[in-house]
């Protein structure tokens, strides 16, 4: 069932210069990509709700879907949520399907019940699912209707997190893209401003805020905001930096409103974070000496922290199964800053434009794969016999039982890993399973 083929992607890079990134080869820019299509062992976009509902503190995510959707989110969240969730599911039943009940009226009732229980909610996302897409339930109209009824108390938006359209982190992309039309327009004579796009841990956001302030870059805002009312303004004087590699639709929507993306590597590891900040520094014409002076202490700290783990990771052969689209930048960090030997870097979707800086830095000779046919990929993985496999929760224990060390990829999404101060933590995540194997005598 897989139409596996090596297809050479030969699009020329937009920019010829490699910036500050060492030797001037093109890394994996022109590397062939193994494109696969078959069984995918990945979450659908609904899973993004698990972190998004904590990030935006006064938002609620209502999935319009089946019992499977409800079960999925609670199973994905089950081990992590200790507080009352700000998400729920309006479960479609046979009455809705048979036309015995008007699905829109039923949805309105669910929303009424929800909002009366949670008067603290200021923003409600109606989240489409596979079943709601297949029966063509128009959630954008429903959102407009409900918004009219509940504004100004509650703004109702919609996006799709369905598995037929979105893979795991693409749910966050769809959610953020739905926020873009709601962002106020910047004033006509507004100064140049910066938006950092992509959900980050609060502590990381605060670190970046401080760095930008010290560099003299600003005003800086973040998307998503912590509160629904704090959506940043956008317009032609807006520049934005992607903090996450999976935000294709959000970036496009921001560009449609005039904002310009600053091309940069992603802020993972010392090198990535520096390149990312540098892109903003250039747009703000910050002198090189200032940049150097401001970032030096944090860069040194990051290098010191990473050095603790480098010995354990040096020369280790690593295999990435596709999960979050974070794979290429994390692989770049592991290869260049930790000395890891990359065997295969799988990703659900390879966005060449957003990853252009990353691909340049990825060492030649590794296997890049996009999409998945899990049985074939497992065959390759066993044949490669890597020292560490990065994979999802469905594969980790079975591979461990076969004697292969694994790192759960979901932890890369639920742990603060961005920025200088977390660079060591990111390396440690990969050292830990190897360390553990070394300790256990059973």
């Amino acid at each position, binding site marked *: *069932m897989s139409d596996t083929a090596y297809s050479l992607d030969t699009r020329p890079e937009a920019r010829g210069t490699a910036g500050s990134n060492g030797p001037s080869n093109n890394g994996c820019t022109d590397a062939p990509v193994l494109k696969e299509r*078959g*069984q*995918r*062992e*990945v*979450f*659908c*976009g609904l*899973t993004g709700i698990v972190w998004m509902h*904590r990030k935006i*503190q006064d938002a609620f995510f209502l999935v*319009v879907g*089946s*019992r*499977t959707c*409800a*079960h*999925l989110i*609670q*199973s*994905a969240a*089950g*081990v992590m949520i*200790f*507080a*009352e*969730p700000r998400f*729920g*599911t*309006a*479960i*479609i*039943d*046979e009455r*809705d*399907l048979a036309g015995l009940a008007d699905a829109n009226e039923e*949805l309105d*009732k*669910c929303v009424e019940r*929800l909002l009366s*229980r*949670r*008067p*603290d909610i200021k923003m409600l996302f109606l989240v489409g699912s*596979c*079943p709601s*897409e*297949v029966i063509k339930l128009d959630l954008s109209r429903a959102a407009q209707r409900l918004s009219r009824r509940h504004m100004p108390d509650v703004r109702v938006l919609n996006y799709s997190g*369905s*598995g037929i359209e979105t*893979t795991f982190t693409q749910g966050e992309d769809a959610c953020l893209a739905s926020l873009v039309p709601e962002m106020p327009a910047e004033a006509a004579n507004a100064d140049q401003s910066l938006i950092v796009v992509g959900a980050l841990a609060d502590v990381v956001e605060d670190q970046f805020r401080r760095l930008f302030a010290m560099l003299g870059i600003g005003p800086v805002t973040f998307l998503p905001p912590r509160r629904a009312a704090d959506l940043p303004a956008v317009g032609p004087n807006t520049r934005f930096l992607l903090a996450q590699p999976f935000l294709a639709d959000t970036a496009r929507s921001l560009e449609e409103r005039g904002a310009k993306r600053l091309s940069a590597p992603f802020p993972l590891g010392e090198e990535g974070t520096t390149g990312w900040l540098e892109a903003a520094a250039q747009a703000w014409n910050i002198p090189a000496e200032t940049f150097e002076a401001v970032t030096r202490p944090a860069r040194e700290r990051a290098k010191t922290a990473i050095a603790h783990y480098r010995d354990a990771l040096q020369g280790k052969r690593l295999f990435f199964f596709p999960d979050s689209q974070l794979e290429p930048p994390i692989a770049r960090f592991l290869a260049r800053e930790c000395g890891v030997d990359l065997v295969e870097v799988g990703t659900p979707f390879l966005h060449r434009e957003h990853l252009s800086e990353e691909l340049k830095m990825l060492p030649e000779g590794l296997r890049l794969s996009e999409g998945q046919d899990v*049985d074939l990929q497992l065959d390759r993985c066993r044949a490669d016999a890597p020292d560490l496999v990065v994979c999802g*929760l469905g*594969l*980790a*224990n*079975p591979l*461990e*039982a076969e004697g292969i060390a694994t790192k759960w990829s979901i932890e890369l999404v639920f742990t603060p890993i961005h920025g200088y101060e977390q660079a060591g933590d990111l390396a440690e995540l990969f050292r830990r399973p190897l360390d553990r194997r070394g300790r256990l005598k059973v």
Partner: protein
Amino acid sequence: MQLTLWTYEGPPHVGAMRVATAMKGLHYVLHAPQGDTYADLLFTMIERRNHRPPVTYTTFQARDLGSDTAVIFKEAMLSAYERFKPQAMLVGSSCTAELIQDDPAGLAKALNLPIPVVPLELPSYQRKENWGASETFYHLTRTLCGPKALPPGAERPARADGAPVTCNLLGPTALGFRHRDDVTEITRILDAMDITVNVVAPLDATPMDVACLGEADFNIVMYPELGETTAKWLERAFRQPTVRTVPIGVGATKRFITEVAEIAGIDAQHMLDRELSRLPWYSRSIDSTYLTGKRVFIFGDATHAIAAAEVAADEFGFQVVGLGTYAREQARDVREAAKRYGLEALITDDYLEVEDQIAELHPELVLGTQMERHIAKRFGIPCAVISAPVHVHDYPARYSPQMGFEGANVIFDTWVHPLMMGLEEHLLGMFREDFEFNDQTPSHLGHKPENAAPVDRPTSTPALTQDLDVAVIQRPQADMQADMQADAQAEIKTDAGAPVWAAEAEKELKKIPFFVRGKARRNTEAFAATQGLTTITLDTLYDAKAHFAR
């Protein structure tokens, strides 16, 4: 459309996965979009299984809809057959595939594979996980055993002289609550009765084993929600009698042994004469006196909830104040059982309703699922888990069955563990002003309730407003909050002409442990109302206490 925050059961195809994953040599091809593979982690993470569930997901995408999803199904089916070489296959749809109506049954048939292929019709928008598991087991059994069924009217051939008595254990699956250990425990009991287990199914059985179910002398249904439908069919097809007593608790285990002995035509008195569980003595020992009349709320699947109620009442001396289930298919059995305790059963799969009832009843112990454990934790009520839905903690490394005599031992330990011992409770009651006694720690396990307020809250308070951040910030003020709520309540009552609390009585009320305080407050107010009192004094409080003394 139903608003759901947490769900007790997954969709029916997850039930089918529980059967497929429990078995060996069986493969399930599930027509499903990307994302439905989440179900794999239920087995690999929660149950810590060391292999992937034997499930191939077709993983169709939006762009495939209307064009070649059927082709994708056929290719997935063929490649799974070639790769895994199963003895039999299951085919079916998840909720989304059900909507696109590709007919996996017809497609699978057209492939004409040289093994039995069992098509599953599991309506996702009507039914749920346990039903899906039960149906899957039933259709698999019918397909594999059907050809060997006795002809209509034929008698079951008598067992050969000297041949051992044999039986099947029906119902244990993957992701069940202690199924693995229950099978071991029941097998040990049967062993002691010289009865041989023919086949355990679905757990660890192959399709070839399932095909031999008809050879046993009788069947034991361990979990009715999973095995009863199959047992009924086997009764008809092979005239096999069925043992239906669920051996959870000492009493039920003894009834189970008696029933098995009768059906097998053997004498099992030696199993009943000796006391094979420690529970009866532990319960009678003087230390357990403090368990007397503890008010317990029970909720779970029907099998475990009904059994827990009996054990709680008859073997712990608890008072069952609430009994319910999320399993609508078995609602009738639970309603019957509830009558014994003078209760009306709570039949719901809405956990908010369960939460409301727990808040209202002020139980001293909750026996429930992982959902009730969350609710109890929020309310600061001790809790033990007795039923699925499960958490990784419900798969302990040690042997810990629920069934049989060892199961009764496990239950004794598990239920007593979250409670305070009698003397601890007395000390807390006597010296309430000791600053080192935490008013909100009814358990010696050291779990502080995040927010004790809901116990005292008026039922109209939104249950969902306690977010993590809020709970953490407000934790030290929780008691104050409870008091404020109580005051607000009292004020409302004043408006309605209800009795007012004198300051002294109000202060005394706070010396009552918080988990019974709400009840004391309501009882006292009700008492004052019947007496026509406008003010509740210290005397009123103690008069009411005497009035309601149990």
